[in-house]
């Protein structure tokens, strides 16, 4: 006779598991010390001012835009070309042979192809092929930091000496939607390698992820949809604050221990509010807060903020970076800047060099650049 066996209670799914104490949290840090060996940024040259968008939709008496201006890609730019320039900048800050790079991972929500990787284009152009992994990552705005965590683990395991992780986007906002003011273009590349060669060493990383539909885009839709105000509290703040508090608790740090903190920056308001709630001073956010000048660069946003910080950071300083991707989750990284930064950062264009290179365009030119005018 068949007697049903009781399910062992230890396998019951989920119950109580989100209540894990921070002290039980396993901080992600490989046994082999790893860090960022090279870093590079890219921002396209074109700028659309917020007042030009409000003039378009609301006339001269339009509302005050949420940011000053956003970066817009040129007609011949996409996530592949932009990733490539950031990757070349990262390589200029190292002396390594690109054929030793064992992974090229590009995080984005605006890959040029639906099927065909961006990463193979980048890998081929920098000379990392053929003995390399190449893949495109997706997780809204945290696709790039997720690729970074994987690269840190990949090098940390000893399977690779070097891995390249990128976060890059040419974000699209539906005309007249609130996101049109902020959806920018840009991002960064990080070459991950052994700690001895690093400009910033990883002290630990963590992730905080839940199923939260605050922002999405279906397969054949051109523009993303979002849940309006819902994106704030249950989306951004819940995940960013949890990831930041947990990593600080687990590593025994307080906000004052960091010289710089970078949060995902969909606008200027969200990162400033998250910083205040966590106990950071506004000066700690300054070097890594670029959204007012380039817009929200989505998968690139926190990462290009980190390049801005590495351009000015002093050896020995601690840096906290916390990304956010809708859907939703946050990745947090605790980094310590090394002596190598001083000589290495001058080897490529600084993030600031790209920010100040600007050519202002009007709404009509913007519409052409972003394919909002269809000729057939």
């Amino acid at each position, binding site marked *: 006779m068949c007697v049903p066996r009781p399910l062992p209670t230890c396998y019951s799914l989920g119950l109580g598991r989100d209540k894990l104490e921070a002290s039980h949290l396993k901080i992600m840090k490989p046994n082999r010390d790893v860090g960022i060996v090279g870093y590079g940024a890219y921002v396209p040259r074109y700028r659309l001012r917020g007042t030009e968008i409000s003039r378009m939709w609301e006339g001269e008496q339009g509302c005050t835009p949420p940011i000053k201006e956003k970066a817009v890609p040129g007609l*011949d*730019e996409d996530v592949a*070309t932009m990733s490539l320039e950031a990757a070349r900048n990262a390589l200029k800050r190292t002396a390594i042979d690109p054929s030793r790079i064992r992974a090229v991972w590009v995080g984005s929500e605006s890959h*040029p192809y639906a099927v065909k990787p961006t990463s193979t284009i980048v890998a081929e*152009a920098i000379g990392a092929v053929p003995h390399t992994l190449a893949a495109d990552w997706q997780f809204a705005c945290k696709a790039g930091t997720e690729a970074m965590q994987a690269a840190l683990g990949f090098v940390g395991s000893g399977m690779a000496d070097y891995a390249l992780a990128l976060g890059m986007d040419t974000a699209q906002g539906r005309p007249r939607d609130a996101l049109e003011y902020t959806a920018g273009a840009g991002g960064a590349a990080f070459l991950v390698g052994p700690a001895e060669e690093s400009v910033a060493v990883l002290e630990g990383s963590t992730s905080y992820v839940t199923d939260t539909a605050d922002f999405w885009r279906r397969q054949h839709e051109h523009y993303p949809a979002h849940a309006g105000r819902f994106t704030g509290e249950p989306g951004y703040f819940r995940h960013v604050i949890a990831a930041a508090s947990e990593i600080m608790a687990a590593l025994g740090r307080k906000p004052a221990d960091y010289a710089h903190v970078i949060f995902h920056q969909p606008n200027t308001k969200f990162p400033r509010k998250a910083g205040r709630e966590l106990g950071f001073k506004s*000066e700690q956010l300054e070097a890594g807060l670029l959204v007012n000048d380039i817009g929200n660069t989505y998968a690139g946003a926190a990462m290009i903020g980190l390049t*801005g910080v590495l*351009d000015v950071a002093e050896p020995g300083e601690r840096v906290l970076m916390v990304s956010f991707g809708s859907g939703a989750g946050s990745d947090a990284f605790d980094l310590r800047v090394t002596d190598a930064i001083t000589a290495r950062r001058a080897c490529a264009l600084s993030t600031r*060099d790209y920010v100040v*290179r600007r050519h202002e365009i009007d709404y009509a030119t913007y519409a052409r650049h972003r394919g909002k005018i269809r000729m057939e």
Partner: protein
Amino acid sequence: MEIARHWRLQRHRYSLVGEVCNHCGVKIFPARDVCPECNAPAKTPYTFSGKGEVYSYSTVHHPPEGFEHFAPYVVALVRLVEGPLVAAQLTDVEGEKIEIGMPVEMVTRKLRDDGSKGTIVYGYKFRPVIAGGAAVVAKDAAV
């Protein structure tokens, strides 16, 4: 067919990879396997620095098929610092005054985009050299 031709050329197109003559040291672009100076076989790959200057230029208002999307655009002959003369588009030049002798640098951009169904062809173009050394936000400037 087209895709195969683009694939064969992509290494030299993405990154200005040419050749160097081991006999007389001349740098060759595009690759042709024979030195134009001394006729010696030259098959050693050489990656150019991408730095050069505008030798001559012209604006294209009536583009050939496949390039309509980018018109008007500027094509130039660029003298690479290593010697060879390369024909390519200039990019990021709207609002810039283009001059003979203007320093330029190689970037990889979209050359063709065959609509929403075809492939995208990437390759070298040249842009005005970006000035480095922009004042970074000093750490205590924000205080």
